[in-house]
């Protein structure tokens, strides 16, 4: 199972047949394992990692630091779950250090994000303050280097 997770984490498009080839397993067994991983929530989704600049996507992304007042019942969890539910929020993490939540927000324009932060996020009961950092350029995302280029050559036959 661990080996399957490792492979899918690297490339979610590996077919079950390919995973079976790579791990020397039965394909049916691979399918069964993947289903189990999906059902028990180990795998919570699949998506392509897109170079937005190339895809022509002009939307913007920002990292928002949020300070919270912990609630008596459930600490940060309730608030964090509430914030995470917004469609604009793509990632949401509880952090150690100077602030409590790190949230990634996406919007069509700078204004969209700014409005979302000021009107929706900062007005949530329990949010004490926010600090917004707009993303300027992507160099690496989810383990992939943007604009993969040069491939060094090897001699075709060597001892």
């Amino acid at each position, binding site marked *: 199972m661990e*080996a399957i997770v*490792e*492979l899918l984490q690297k490339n979610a498009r590996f077919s079950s047949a390919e995973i079976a*080839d*790579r*791990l*020397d397993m039965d394909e049916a067994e691979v399918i069964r394992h993947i289903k189990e991983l999906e059902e028990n929530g180990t795998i919570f989704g699949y998506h392509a990692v897109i170079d937005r600049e190339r895809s022509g996507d002009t939307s913007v992304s920002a990292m928002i630091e949020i300070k919270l007042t912990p609630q008596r019942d459930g600490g940060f969890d309730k608030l964090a779950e509430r914030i995470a539910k917004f469609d604009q929020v793509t990632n949401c993490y509880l952090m150690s250090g100077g602030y409590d939540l790190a949230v990634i927000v996406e919007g069509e324009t700078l204004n969209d994000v700014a409005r979302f932060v000021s009107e929706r996020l900062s007005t949530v009961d329990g949010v004490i303050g926010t600090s917004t950092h707009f993303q300027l350029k992507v160099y690496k995302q989810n383990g992939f280097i943007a604009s993969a280029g040069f491939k*060094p050559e*090897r*001699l*075709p*036959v*060597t*001892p």
Partner: protein
Amino acid sequence: MKPLEDRIAKQVASIPRSGIRDFFELVQGRDDVISLGVGEPDFAAPWHIREAAIFALEKGQTSYTSNLGLPSLRESISKYVTKKFDVKYDPKTEVLVTVGVSEALDIACRALLDPGDEVIYHEPCYVSYSPSIVMAYGKSVAIQTKLEDKFALLASDVEAAITDRTKILLLNFPTNPTGAVEPIEELEKIAKLAIKHDLIVISDEIYSELIYGENGIDVGEHTSIASLPGMKERTILLHGFSKAYAMTGFRLGYSCAPHVLTEAMMKIHQYSMLCAPIMSQLAAVEALENGDAEVERMRKAYAQRRNLLLRKFRKMEVPCFSPGGAFYAFPDIRQFGLSSMEFAHRLLEEESVAVVPGTAFGPAGEGCVRCCYATAYDELEIALEKIGNFVSRLKS
């Protein structure tokens, strides 16, 4: 003027051209070829190692080092070898950093052989073994290992090859080109023979990190002959960074051997090579200190490709023993009635897939071809499909 051909030293003239060169020339210049003929990783050296080399250059570390190699690298090697092989070497006197294992083997032979001394080694093997022995005026005595034994070396064959001129036993497990590993029982018997006949053992263990366990994914077991009782004092352990760390172009290897042997090898090394490149040495320190995770990542990738390859050969009904190490498979093509050379030539002509004829590694390689699976998975898949097409045409 006498023809220049006549000026070449007899010893050098006597060495045949490498079979691999002939094949290389056929493949070179064709850009449609998928090559399983390469003997090196398809990965670039891990970034943290490259970064260490860049940092070394930035700091202006461009000078000679001690002939033996940087003390810090020898410390790291000694620590690593103790952990990995369970043999302790004094970094001050028993470790020598070389320009690849190739240099280490060359100077080991030159340090030990007097004209006519015999070296026993096992074929199929890496192409430089016999030439290295011959250039040191030794006599190379090849034992032909067999497909039936999964190309393991039998102690009984070693015993039969020993004469009163035998000085060295040269071992390479896991083996290039077969991927063979040596069963521990045979290794123990061979160690006893070495002690009984007072032989020096040179053990080239360059592939010893790339070992595959029973389930095809987990790391397998490797025992160095140097770690067996009574063997450290008669063994020259050769290892390096090319394969496991994907650092072929850094040209860096090392030998671990008793002080007297190290000192003799160092004499040749200091006059012919002076020292290994310092930036490679600094990169190697980084590799040993922080490289384990990357080695395992690459080993796992090889393991997956190995699984694919064995599976596809099974489907093609081409027998291929399950190689325990390195990144080579050595399928048996005898059923097609072609020589290894003919098979490789036709596969190249008809399907544009390059494999290396087994005979490039010695006569015992006849009937097999070497397929290197240090090739991107997708390319390997296509190559195997093409081999499948070729094979089914041969069968029909």
